[in-house]
């Protein structure tokens, strides 16, 4: 009886120790928290509806729907070594869904000279079939190049006739010649560099988006000119790509 008891205890002890192998490098989890502002004023779902924000062109706008994709998170060390996470997250500010995202893969603590992600999807990821994005109706039709929206921003503005008018600021892969054989003038996904982060423990990284930047520079966005049917407009898509470069920044880091 005593030997059996010792045997059972030994098995339990060995089993309970197996996940604490001292030879493994410790890892920590990373959580990305997405916050949004209009030139510093926090934007939450309850701010949607009323036409109350003034963009760089002087147009007054309101939000109806706002969601976008980030993907391919990369942690870069000083020696150039990179940890690349082949992931994506559909941030839905309209319903405040996926506002925090924790990749399954953990990373070693350390000093990272840059943390970056892709706005939208690169062409490889964009050509894949993502069931969750299909279910969210985030597709771009095949005759517009296929794949997925990078961002869907629907709202209203007061136009030059002082009337409310809808706009659909939808960022996709820029496309020409819509139809059976579309062509792609240039890539319009882009890398967002958050900068250096010293990771010592489980970490929460705030990613801020200033939505006003999408209308600001280098292209002063005139909603009276560019408001709807912008998906097949490669000029508009390239302008969105250029304006989005300064929309993101690193916020607070908690660990």
């Amino acid at each position, binding site marked *: 009886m005593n030997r059996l008891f010792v045997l059972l205890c030994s098995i339990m002890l060995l089993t309970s120790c197996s996940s604490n192998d001292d030879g493994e490098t410790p890892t920590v989890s990373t959580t990305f928290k997405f916050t949004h502002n209009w030139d510093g004023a926090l934007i939450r779902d309850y701010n*949607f*509806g009323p036409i109350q924000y003034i963009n760089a062109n002087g147009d007054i706008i309101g939000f109806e729907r706002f969601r976008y994709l980030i993907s391919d998170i990369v942690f870069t060390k000083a020696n150039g070594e990179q940890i690349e996470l082949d992931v994506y997250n559909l941030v839905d500010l309209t319903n405040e869904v996926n506002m925090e995202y924790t990749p399954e893969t953990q990373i070693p603590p350390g000093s990272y000279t840059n943390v970056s992600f892709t706005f939208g999807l690169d062409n490889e990821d964009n050509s894949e*079939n993502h069931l969750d994005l*299909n279910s969210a*109706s985030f597709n771009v039709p095949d*005759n517009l190049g296929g794949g997925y929206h990078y961002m869907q921003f629907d709202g209203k503005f007061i136009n030059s006739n002082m009337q409310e*008018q809808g706009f659909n600021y939808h960022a996709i892969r820029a496309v020409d010649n819509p139809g059976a054989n579309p062509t792609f003038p240039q890539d319009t996904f882009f890398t967002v560099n958050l900068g250096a982060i010293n990771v010592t423990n489980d970490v929460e990284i705030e990613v801020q988006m200033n939505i006003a930047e999408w209308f600001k520079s280098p292209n002063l966005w005139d909603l009276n000119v560019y408001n709807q049917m912008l998906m097949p407009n490669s000029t508009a898509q390239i302008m969105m790509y250029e304006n989005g470069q300064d929309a993101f920044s690193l916020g607070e880091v908690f660990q």
Partner: protein
Amino acid sequence: MKKGVFLVFITLLCLNCSDEDTGYEPTPQPLDIPQIFSDNIIAPVIPTDNPQTMEGVALGKQLFFDRILSADGTQSCASCHGPQSAFTDNTPTSAGIDGVFGTRNSMPLFNLAWNYGERFTWDGKELSLERQAEEPVQNPIELHSNWDDVVDRLQNHPEYPELFQHAFNTSTITKELTTKAIAQFERTLISANSKFDRYSLGQTSLTAQELNGLDVFLREDKGDCFHCHGNPNNPLWTDNDFHNNGLDTTFDDLGLGAVSGDPNDNGKFRTPSLRNLAFTAPYMHDGRFATLDEVINHYSEGLQDSPTIDPLMKQLDQGGVQLTTQEKADLKAFLLSLSDPSFINNPEFQN
């Protein structure tokens, strides 16, 4: 040592036996997920407290078609949700047992388990299929019963206690078990065998007109239907979300706004699926459009502005997207390719 081995053996035996003590269990009957769905969209929503079972689905089907749920025994769920109409009605609104008409068009019933947001009815006020099934029974202009009476009738019925015993392991009938059974049946109402589905699977081809119609549907500078109504990669053909699609300048029916209390939601209704349009006329939440042509004309020239109109509605100053006569005909041909005669004729779904 021998006693110790015996003790461990007995313990293991007890652990192995513990699951068998509950006796009878209904037979699991998972949904038969069509390939066009499994290839493209995520898994359906099945509540953990109401798994699909063969006995539960059979009971739900019998209840769905049984007039015992109405106060005077004259109507069932199927009275307003008939199989030949893809489980809707062929009138703009429907009359209840007292001959009083409601204010909303009966919604067609199919692919309900893929409503990921689980907001049912036109205004989204029902937060699960089980809860939705409660309301029509006691609605005074629908089945006009009360649930206590319904449960009494079912409990005193010669067959139902045994059917509940088989479905839920108890012969004590409750409102909750009754709606669970109906919801199980409703989740089996799957439509995924339209001509377009077979085209997507490489099993048939579309006509030139249908393909042109698909192009109109998907072009942002033409119909731009896909933002709300899905696309070949989202074969539900709805986003199950809420939109004001420009029917009125003012609202007699606030839709989602009456549920949320948010004036920004006034005039918003859930996007219906475009499947089975051949069987589901009339259209819109109040059944105002008798034909598909009227619906297409609405989006082409008939949009009405209002404070909450969805910004996805295009060219509002011109009344809509201004399709040509040919584009309208092509679009209609494509839309009809989404209808699924095998669904309305499926013997599993008939009374």
